[in-house]
């Protein structure tokens, strides 16, 4: 069987963002394999370990994305494909770029993160599934293979459900599905020799970003000492009532 994890490289949520000329400038940010996609990589590795076959990482994005592909290879993925594309891509454009590669790879299962930590899109899984004409299971928390089908538990807006799905299918991943492993030193050494095939993509995004601005609301930061909890609670309630006027 073949298991594919589709990944991107994004800024670490903890790193500071700045804006230059109305656009987010990532030059000073720490860039990482999107943590949501990390669950996809980990799940592909576990499925391969259990059922045999091949685990392939497919990265989408600019040249620097190769670092994130190497991270996945160091975690244990067998080989990589890099669909090289500069700039912002909406999920439909990204799916158009990825679909030919995925069709050629013809995996049993495609995994990708439930939400992108940079563009906050949740739609890549659905768009990929449509591009390939297969079902999508979003926000997966349990995944088990049963021959030519998979059984999965996934979250809905209210509650969750167990489903059975014919393969191939797309699954979007999230926290709770597994605990991603860290790359080991031997893993990092081996990753250097693993193949990354480059594929160019020259499509035009349908959605264009016109302007971006940092939206960190200035907070009041009034912190009270709770050594005397009763007095601190009284003061907090007074502030919420008289100053903030929210209770």
């Amino acid at each position: 069987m073949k298991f594919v994890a589709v990944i991107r490289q994004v800024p670490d949520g903890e790193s500071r963002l700045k804006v230059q000329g109305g656009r987010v400038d990532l030059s000073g940010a720490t860039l990482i394999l999107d943590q949501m996609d990390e669950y996809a990589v980990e799940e592909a590795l576990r499925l391969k370990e259990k059922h045999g076959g091949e685990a392939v990482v497919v990265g989408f994005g600019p040249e620097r994305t190769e670092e994130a592909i190497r991270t996945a290879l160091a975690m244990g993925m067998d080989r990589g494909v890099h669909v090289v594309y500069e700039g912002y891509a909406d999920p439909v454009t990204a799916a158009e770029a990825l679909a030919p590669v995925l069709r050629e790879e013809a995996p049993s299962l495609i995994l990708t993160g439930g939400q992108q930590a940079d563009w906050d899109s949740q739609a890549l899984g659905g768009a990929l599934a449509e591009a390939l004409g297969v079902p999508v299971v979003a926000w997966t928390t349990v995944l088990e293979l049963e021959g030519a089908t998979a059984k999965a538990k996934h979250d809905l807006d209210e509650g969750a459900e167990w489903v059975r799905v014919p393969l191939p299918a797309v699954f979007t991943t999230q926290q709770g599905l597994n605990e991603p492993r860290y790359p080991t030193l031997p893993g990092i050494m081996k990753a250097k020799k693993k193949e990354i095939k480059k594929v160019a993509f020259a499509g035009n995004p349908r959605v264009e970003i016109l302007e971006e601005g940092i939206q960190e609301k200035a907070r009041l930061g009034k912190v009270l000492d709770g050594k005397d909890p009763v007095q601190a609670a009284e003061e907090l309630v007074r502030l919420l009532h008289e100053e903030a006027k929210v209770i």
Partner: protein
Amino acid sequence: MVLVVLDHDGSKLRKASLEALTRARQLAEALGEKVAGVLLAEGPAPVEEARGYVEVLYVAELGPYTAEKWAAALLEAAKGGAKAIVAPSSRQSRTYLGRVAYALKAGLLEDTLESAAEGGMVHATRYAYLNRVTQRQRAPLPVVLTVKANTTPLAEPLGTQGEVVPLAVPPVPTVEILERVQEERKGVSLAEANVVVTGGRGMGSPEAFKGVEELAALLGGAVGATRAVVDAGWRPYAEQVGQTGKTVQPSLYIALGVSGAVQHLAGMNKSKFIVAVNKDPEAPIFKHADYGIVGDVHQVLPALIQAVKRLKD
């Protein structure tokens, strides 16, 4: 035509649908188009209520939700040539609309705060980078657009009764649903609450959430939880706030024993006022708080409940 997806609970339209309707009407007016509603239902649906808001109402009874069936029904409704499809933003809509946008080769504008049509383009604003950045986007027609909850005034009924058109949806390969795990909903819903009281791992035990529930009830608010608490099985997933949970934007957000991880902040950092109680003065949550108490939540929470009760008397 502008299509608007009307979410409902089986007996009435959700508030979010009335927000989506307002946006759909704005786009339709600017584009010189009509608004048609789409009511996708597992079983019973509020057809009578919904037809009061639109001139044409497409209705499809599809059985339990799957992304494939919902997408197929919408594509069927869009066959008449939809210039735009508008839907309330939800985790489910953001999945099946990924399918729809791809099939129509349309620009997808997700979780928008505002939108407007201008010169064949639809402009929208939204948050990005885990809710830390505001983005202005634009896409040519056709577009698929989701509306973030609590951003838009609610639409009024038209005072006429729209024509009901049943949709014949071709069968599609999809997932088979084996078992639904329903979560009981108590009190005010998280998405609509004006006050949210969230407990984190610092609460120490599921029993300690009695206090969280009591404070939330006193303030007329809803209970939230962090992922750590949900993973520990202390609270249901429906209460989770954050990147993989719900996004909330109440007037008052109270975080009790919550560290303030970025993935949690992503779900609440737009709240008007943020209050934090944590025993660690270095906890990141304090950097994002308007008011805070450094102290043991087991002492501070009962004192807070008493103080709110005194204020109310």
